[in-house]
């Protein structure tokens, strides 16, 4: 397995972990004491915005961690060259993630059109965002492995 495949897999695992931990903390601290908060748009906006820097920070930390672990294990530096193949793989994975998010967005709007509660829309939006980012990383990994 090459460094880029390993890095993609590492990022995938870290992003899943961060999402699970963040969602669990918010659920335990905010939703369990007051279940009515799930239909409050301010609650969703606040914790969604808070998640953005946490996700970015965790990606930076995971990259640094991966570089350190890789250096210790293989005694090699990470290649920082992003060539045409990397850019193509990135573009294709972004395209896949955009399609998934668009589908999720339509589902979320559909839930409102059908008169469902606000939390259904927000959960659909967040889940589609998470799934699209996970599938994007997975697609990258597959494309690095399989070639195209």
């Amino acid at each position, binding site marked *: 397995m090459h*460094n*880029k495949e390993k890095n993609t897999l590492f990022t995938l695992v870290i992003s899943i972990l961060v999402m699970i931990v963040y969602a669990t903390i918010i659920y335990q601290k905010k939703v369990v004491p007051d279940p009515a908060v799930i239909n409050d748009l301010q609650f969703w906006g606040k914790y969604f915005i808070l998640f953005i820097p946490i996700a970015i920070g965790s990606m930076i930390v995971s990259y640094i961690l991966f570089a350190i672990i890789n250096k210790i294990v293989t005694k090699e530096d990470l*290649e920082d*060259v992003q060539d*045409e*193949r*990397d850019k193509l793989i990135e573009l294709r994975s972004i395209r896949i993630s955009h399609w998934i998010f668009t589908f999720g967005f339509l589902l979320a709007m559909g839930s409102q059109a059908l008169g469902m509660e606000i939390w259904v829309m927000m959960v659909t939006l967040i889940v589609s965002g998470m799934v699209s980012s996970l599938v994007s990383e997975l697609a990258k990994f597959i494309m690095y492995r399989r*070639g*195209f």
Partner: protein
Amino acid sequence: MAKEFISNTIRKQRFMNDEMTQQQLADAVSVSRQTIVAMEKDKYSPSLELAFRIAHVFKVPFDEVFQYDAEKDPLWTRKKKRETVQK
């Protein structure tokens, strides 16, 4: 997916150039070693720009490094099928 109708002789050319390493070739054309590996395994077809650069590094004509087999190209086989159906 690899394009079966485009092949290359990068591995052979490296051998002919004093067993040049994949890393040396990668550095010479400013790509990662993984991209050279993918090309050698026919898992990636490079851009025209990169293909010319590789041929330039080996100091050989372009078609000595990259070959195109029209018989295997699905574009022409599809067109041929369509033409025979129309006839």
